């Protein structure tokens, strides 16, 4: 029997049991599409993380009060040091430190001609932004006014929120920023107007792209920080000095100050992401295995139902290997169709799901959409894995069919 005939006979057998075949293919589709979706979303997330950290300079450290948490910028309150100008001066005096840039952070409600939007506030000397983000670029017409307490620079995502057809604001426009804070006397609201003097080009760093950057003094006032910095960006003389500076900071301030590097943050995030990936991949593979069990059931039933046919085929001369091949090709066809449809549906589903799984940034602003990334080699691997599991699932029923004695098979009703 030549391969073409085996294929045609196997295909005919599958078509004959349309509903069962479709349901079995559906199981493989579900399994493989799930793996494709999860893989794509994980790859997208990993790439997004990498992009965020790649925008940061290699020679900077982030210093905050207390032990720095690796998983976020949150700081613990116990044994923490208030970061003020004294601490700043001390850090600046450390060897191998070329600069130390203080910053306040918070969130505000922005109002531009009646339109409102929440946004993160980064209060920093704007001329020092390039120390942290060396590739930062401004749109034409932007001016940086470090000493101007009423000027603001805004990130690209603030100006062009995802899905919006017109810019939220333009250069020269005035925004009204409203911040709230609480103290022992209650809750207070601070309102300040800023003129947009600069707009950043998309930097790839979601944090900065969603920020309103204002003068340090303006931030201190708007966010009611009382000269207590949230973070100091420490620039080491060279990237090779980062570890030395981190050591110096630890020996000088102990656990009252925490310092971490983009590299360390990246490593922890990637590790966490890879742990997640392994878990979700397991879920996908379990779905695929369930699909494979479906194939075993379908083909096993098929063998039982077609036992006389198998006997007839053997009586007219079919070899065991040909019967084996017929059933394996049936399983392979289910696998090929299921894996191919699963891959396509997985890609489409990945994009759709990524739209529904946008995350809102902590500081406010438009939700972050992380598009999935489908690496061709990963898709091929998932396709091959689906096919392999399908063929593997078809092995037992096929083997059972091939080993049937023709006489016994012919006698079966």
């Amino acid at each position, binding site marked *: 029997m030549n391969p073409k*005939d085996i294929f045609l006979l196997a295909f005919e057998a599958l078509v004959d049991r349309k509903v069962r075949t479709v349901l079995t293919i559906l199981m493989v589709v579900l399994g493989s599409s799930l793996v494709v979706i999860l893989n794509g979303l994980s790859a997208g997330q990993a790439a997004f993380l990498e992009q965020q950290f790649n925008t940061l300079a290699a020679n900077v450290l982030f210093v905050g009060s207390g032990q720095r948490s690796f998983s976020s910028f949150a700081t613990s309150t116990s044994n923490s040091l208030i970061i003020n100008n004294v601490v700043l001066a001390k850090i600046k005096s450390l060897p191998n430190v070329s600069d130390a840039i203080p910053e306040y952070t918070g969130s505000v409600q922005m109002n531009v001609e009646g339109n409102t939007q929440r946004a993160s506030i980064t209060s920093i000397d704007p001329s020092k932004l390039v120390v942290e983000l060396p590739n930062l670029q401004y749109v034409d017409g932007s001016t940086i006014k470090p000493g101007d307490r009423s000027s603001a620079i805004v990130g690209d995502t603030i100006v062009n929120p995802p899905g919006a057809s017109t810019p939220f604001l333009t250069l020269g426009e005035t925004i009204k920023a409203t911040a709230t804070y609480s103290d022992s006397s209650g809750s207070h609201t601070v309102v300040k107007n800023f003129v947009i003097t600069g707009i950043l080009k998309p930097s790839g760093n979601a944090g900065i792209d969603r920020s309103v950057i204002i003068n340090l003094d303006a931030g201190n006032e708007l966010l009611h920080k009382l000269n207590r910095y949230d973070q100091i960006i420490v620039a080491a003389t060279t990237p090779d000095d980062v570890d030395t500076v981190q050591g110096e900071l630890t020996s000088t301030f102990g656990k009252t100050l925490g310092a971490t590097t983009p590299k360390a943050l990246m490593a922890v995030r990637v590790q966490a992401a890879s742990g997640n990936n392994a878990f979700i991949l397991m879920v996908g593979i379990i779905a695929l295995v369930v699909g494979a069990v479906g194939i075993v059931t379908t083909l096993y039933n098929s063998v039982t139902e077609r036992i006389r046919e198998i*006997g*007839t085929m053997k*009586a007219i001369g*079919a*070899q065991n*290997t040909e019967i084996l091949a017929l059933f394996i090709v049936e399983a392979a066809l289910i696998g090929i169709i299921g894996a191919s449809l699963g891959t396509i549906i997985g890609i489409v589903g990945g994009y759709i799901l990524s739209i529904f799984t946008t995350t809102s940034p902590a500081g406010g602003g438009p939700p972050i959409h992380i598009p999935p990334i489908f690496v061709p080699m990963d898709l091929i691997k998932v396709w091959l894995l689906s096919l392999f599991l399908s063929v593997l699932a078809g092995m037992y029923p096929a083997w059972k069919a091939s080993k049937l004695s023709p006489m016994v098979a*012919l006698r079966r009703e």
Partner: protein
Amino acid sequence: MTKSIGVQNDEKNTNDVSNTKSEKSMQSIIDDFVLKTEHVYKTFDSAAGKVIALEDINFKVKRGQFVSIMGPSGSGKSTLLNILGALDRPSSGKVIINGYDIFSLADSEIATMRNRLIGYIFQSYNLVNRSTVEINVKLPAIIAGMSTSEANSRAKKILEELGIADKAKQKPSNLSGGQQQRVAIARCLINNPAIIMADEPTGNLDTKTGQDIFDMLKLLSHKFGRTILMVTHNPELAQLTDRTVLIKDGRIENDIMN
């Protein structure tokens, strides 16, 4: 009916298996007899002990002979047909078809023998209902690895000869019992077998259709020199064959030339 159905020495005859890998293990005893059995025994182990289904079966079938096998239920005639048709191995003894001691071969080679030397007609037709009549007829040729054009041409010719060419694209389940049995006959002829094994081919048919099918087999034997072994319960049909072998209690009780 043209001569093509009865072709025995066709150059493309697929029963020429001399070029198979089993050649060395095959005992070539070419003579006038297309089938010979030598001291064939078949025993089964059962809870009640050893059951002898066939005992010392010795007979020869001449080329072109139409032989009927008769016997009461449980006499061993179907067991005999299964062994002669290479569907089951004997406990001991030899079965030689067209000069080949078939049970000296490996299972895969026996399968090749079934494909090339033996044609089967079953009582319940045993057609693949999801496939068309044409594909059913071509199945043995497909298994033999025959080229598509050759298989198509043979199938077309045989279906025309058997008067069911117009049913080629239909599914067997849409045909009458007589037409289905004709399809089964066409299937058994496609590889030009040395011998045809028919297991009660008229058993599922009404008298008239059964007679038509029998007449067709007789025509194949007498006009086209086909060798046929037919198990039947019908003594009237058996009498119309060249020879009747009566089996009782696993032995040949009588061997009559009609």
